[in-house]
């Protein structure tokens, strides 16, 4: 039993950063953090969860950095953060399982026999797509085909990949993680990439270290490469 404690003590001696990170960014972030840890001899504590759940968590227990899937959450958390830095971007695309339903464009989603999975309005993707589709006056026709509402974008992609629904609109980076899925770019969304930004929290006790990690994340070429590797778009430097 006591074997569990030493690991705790050894990590106490090193400086450490707590980073609240959206679960969808887990793969690139784990890689980058491990590199950073090796180079700088510090401990990075990555706390994964849905972006919103993370917001709940960080309100309660403080920490150093917050990296939600979309910038929306940063608006919600504006009173808790100091500065934000774009790290990568995602674009909404049409996600299908295969050729079977002959879906080629947004208008095909309005057909009678189509089943769609959509994220709840509070999720970043849910809010964003509803907004855009409202503006283009496609929403009403598409809404009637929504079979199920899921809490996160991952869940809607899952539904498509398991064949429980025929299509969804999701972030390209999320959909790209699953090799079997077919992705169709949508003109309506193609020019509206959503930026993912990392924010330094007011509660941070290690602002200097946090800044160091942020710049490693946003400026280092290896970090950008890692993001690209997992399907995330890059952002123009500030």
């Amino acid at each position, binding site marked *: 039993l006591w074997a569990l404690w030493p690991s705790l003590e050894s990590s106490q001696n090193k400086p450490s950063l707590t980073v609240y990170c959206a679960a969808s960014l887990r793969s690139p972030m784990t890689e980058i953090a491990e590199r950073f840890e090796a180079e700088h001899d510090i401990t990075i504590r990555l706390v994964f969860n849905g972006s919103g759940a993370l*917001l709940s968590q960080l309100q309660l227990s403080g920490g150093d950095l917050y990296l939600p899937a979309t910038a929306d959450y940063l608006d919600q958390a504006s009173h808790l953060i100091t500065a934000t830095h774009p790290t990568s971007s995602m674009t909404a695309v049409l996600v299908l399982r295969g050729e*079977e339903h002959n879906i080629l464009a947004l208008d095909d989603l309005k057909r009678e026999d189509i089943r769609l999975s959509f994220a*709840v309005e509070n999720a970043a993707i849910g809010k964003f797509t509803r907004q855009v589709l409202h503006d283009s006056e496609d929403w009403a026709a598409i809404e009637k085909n929504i*079979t*199920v509402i*899921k809490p996160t974008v991952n869940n809607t992609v899952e539904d498509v990949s*398991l064949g429980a629904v025929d299509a969804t609109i999701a972030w390209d980076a999320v959909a790209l993680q699953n090799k079997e899925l077919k992705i169709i770019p949508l003109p309506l969304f193609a020019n509206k990439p959503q930026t993912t930004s990392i924010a330094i929290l007011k509660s941070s006790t290690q602002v200097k270290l946090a800044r160091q990690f942020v710049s490693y994340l946003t400026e280092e070429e290896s970090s950008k490469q890692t993001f690209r590797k997992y399907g995330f778009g890059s952002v123009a430097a500030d």
Partner: protein
Amino acid sequence: MKHLKPTRSDLPFYGSISLIGGAYVALLTLLVLACASFLTWETFTETLQSPAILQSLKLTFLTCTASSILALFVSVPLSYSLSRFRFRGRSVIDTLLDIPIVLPPIVVGLSLLILFNSLPSSENSLERLLNGQGTAVTFHVPAIILAQFTIITAFATRSLKVTFDQLPERTEHIALTLGCNRFQAFWKICLPQAQPGILAAGLLAWARALGEFGPILIFAGATRGKTEVLSTSIFLEINTGNLPGAAAISLVLILLSLSTISLLRFLGSRTSNN
């Protein structure tokens, strides 16, 4: 024994028992207080008046009750046969029963989704077959019940097996000599003696069903007014960073379920204390 005052040699025993038990009870109380500390009176009354919450409250109680009745219906015969009969494959079944307990609930939900929608292929799936018959499970109310049922039946069976294992078979044997067949001996002799255990298992199943949300989110979704139950509402509130909302629904859940459970337990203890 309750009339004799504890002597000095018993004090350490009573003391340490109350200390250990009291510490855990204190932890539970603190947890509720912690949860309540985020509550404001307005969010609480708002929550109580929100039609969406009331709707999901109704759905929650209905599905949990349905699934725990189903769970008892399956787990009583299952645990009885595991306890009384020695048959081939018995220990395999006993082991399989741990799967829903061991697996993270979310995997159970995912497996159900796969089972209904992509086996053997998504064009030929069970769900398509059902849709052809004019019904649907996935993303509809039956999915909630099935997800709850899958998990709580295992808990109820485990709990009931302890009950049946401890009931002596002897009275059942005597009933056989008096002309009972095995079913009558089970029904008239074993089952009534197991009644407190069955009540406990049923309440455990019901309570466990209330707290379930992982598999429901995946297999039934969280479509407002259609498949949203209280536990999924809480999850959604937390997922939008709305802690006061989540606290309010949690407290509603705690209050209603604990009072229901206490009432049932009270009624149960009255009937068994003949």
